[in-house]
């Protein structure tokens, strides 16, 4: 457990510290979302209608931007080899790194969302459901991203390959995330079903992804 927490704490520190990925991810999220009104013109009704979808897509892209680095730095400096010699199973190491990515990147992105909702004239009533859907759905984003990162570790231009591999796998998360916000607008209780499915996607991917990522790491050589 000590080793697990040590990895989580170190990765969070490295992400937040100098040269970490968190600033890039937050900045990217902010810029993508603020480009939308500029591109579509000042039609506030249109913006309000598309806001949940735009925020979700931007969140996925921003999280993905840093996901390809989950293992890359540790691979480059030899840390990954030494991590695999810990008494901690490699699956637990990958889970620790996923958890750290979620805490250090996905969570701050979710917390920035209310501010960006203002830019898109998001309806006040939609905020709680949107935030809840992002909180519930974002673990899947980190987990699936980590599998992609592990698979493309030895590939040249791995970062671009991660996007191609992982973005299609984000489709269910995106669909149920946006559906829950739409459902909440018609009836507050209607959001429950998509949110529960979103939770199921997150739980399943968090449970399975460590094994997939560890298998990918073992096969890299």
């Amino acid at each position, binding site marked *: 457990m*000590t*080793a697990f*927490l*040590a*990895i989580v704490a*170190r990765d969070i*520190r*490295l992400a937040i*510290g*100098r*040269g970490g990925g968190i600033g890039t991810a937050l900045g990217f999220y902010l810029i993508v979302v603020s480009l939308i009104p500029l591109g579509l013109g000042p039609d506030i009704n249109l913006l309000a209608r598309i806001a949940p979808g735009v925020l979700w897509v931007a969140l996925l892209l921003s999280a993905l931007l840093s996901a390809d680095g989950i293992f890359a*730095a540790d691979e*480059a*400096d*030899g*840390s990954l*080899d*030494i*991590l*695999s*010699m*810990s*008494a*901690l199973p490699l699956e637990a190491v990958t889970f620790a790194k996923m958890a750290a990515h979620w805490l250090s990147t996905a969570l701050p992105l979710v917390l920035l969302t209310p501010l960006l909702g203002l830019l898109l004239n998001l309806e006040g009533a939609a905020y709680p459901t949107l935030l809840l859907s992002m909180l519930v759905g974002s673990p899947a984003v980190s987990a699936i991203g980590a599998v992609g990162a592990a698979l493309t570790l030895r590939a040249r231009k791995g970062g671009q390959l991660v996007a191609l591999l992982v973005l299609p796998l984000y489709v269910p998360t995106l669909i149920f995330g946006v559906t829950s916000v739409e459902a909440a607008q018609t009836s507050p209780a209607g959001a429950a079903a998509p949110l529960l499915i979103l939770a199921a996607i997150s739980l399943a991917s968090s449970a399975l992804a460590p094994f997939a990522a560890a298998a990918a790491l073992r096969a890299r*050589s």
Partner: protein
Amino acid sequence: MSGLSQRRGTRMLFSSLDLSLPSGRALLLTGPNGSGKTTLLRTIAGFLKPLSGTVTLSGAGDEVDLPEKCHFIGHYNGLKASMTAEENLRFWQRVLASDHAGDARSVNDALIELNIEHLADIPAGYLSAGQQRRLALARLLLSPRPIWLMDEPTAALDDAGTRLVVALVDRHTAAGGLAILSTHLPLPVQRGTGFDMRDALREREEAVG
């Protein structure tokens, strides 16, 4: 090690390699660049799956996971540039902590032993190549493990550093530990046996031819 074979790409590096090392001995792997020293060490460490053959640690039971009994010092030092020397070591101490008792040293003692205690608060990225290597070597002292795998441990080290490596290995083997080192320098370690990687290939060629 029995019947160990490994290749990189299509090139066979060694096949049916049989080596055994009694406790308290050091094995010095020599051989030209590309002869498979690193590959052999990485195979023992469990980073590479052997093409055939097994590596076992006798007296440790069947259930033992060999990499957990090994320390690996590779070409890369496993240091984070933005973390201080002390933070790097503290992290590895927590990750590599093992439950079997032994003389695990504190981070501070390890730094003193490697003569880099004055660098404790400096981010590892600012250290010279030799200082980073010393920091990586300090990892060996943080958690007692019976097998030390060292891939050119003296790379980037000065004369004093090289003597330090020899002293560390000597003390480790004197306490009954095993050390397998790859090196291009004739390291004067006590209780050392040399093994030329070219022999591993020659045996194969004789067997084939």
